């Protein structure tokens, strides 16, 4: 059974760094892209970027390029989304999903990680 399990909710202050995770199981982690999607409170889905864990090829949305870093660790089947310094506007739910590039669609999703940034 394919599963993506994300790390738990985070409450941070502006300027603090943060790294959240998405652990895949039940499939060959290095053979599928992982994408990250932001959902701000009461808003729609926004694509942030993709990573191919097999070779760490990474693509970013222009809206998020330079603001976040996407990475992956093949040894632990885990993808990451990180910020060097959070802003209040980063408060949102973040989802990871397994992405089939050729078709294209997200076939499995993580449960989401809520990030709250407040002073």
């Amino acid at each position, binding site marked *: 059974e394919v599963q993506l399990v994300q790390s738990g909710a985070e409450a941070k202050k502006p300027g603090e760094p943060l790294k959240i995770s998405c652990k895949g199981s039940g499939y060959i982690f290095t053979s599928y892209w992982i*994408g990250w*999607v932001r959902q701000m409170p009461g808003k*729609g*889905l*926004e*694509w942030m970027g*993709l990573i191919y864990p097999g070779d760490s090829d990474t*693509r970013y*949305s*222009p809206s998020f390029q330079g603001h976040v870093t996407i990475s992956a660790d093949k040894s632990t089947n885990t993808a990451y989304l990180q910020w060097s310094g959070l802003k209040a506007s980063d408060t949102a739910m973040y*989802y990871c*999903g397994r*992405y*089939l*590039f050729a*078709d*294209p*669609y*997200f*076939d*499995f*999703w*993580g*449960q*989401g990680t809520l990030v709250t940034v407040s002073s």
Partner: protein
Amino acid sequence: QSVLTQPPSVSAAPGQKVTISCSGSSSDIGSNYVSWYQQLPGTAPKLLIYDSIRRPSGIPDRFSGSKSGTSATLDITGLQAGDEAHYYCETWDSSLYVVVFGGGTKLTVL
């Protein structure tokens, strides 16, 4: 502002049919398959339709998708109270090399 345009809301009575549209351009919907996701309140999105017309295992045939030119459509028949959710379309933009989502449509079952 989302690249793909969806109506903000649709509504219909139980048992009836509803159609949700998704409008794009030649570089996104016009060049690629479309997928649809259902997001129930407080939950992660769930794949409903992929390759514009295909349903994953476990998705009832009450849900169907179609695509024509630069637009796609999600039809839901035999509406049930449990179908109340937000629905999103998604595809790839072959010019910008980005994933694009619609703004989402809130379905209300009256």
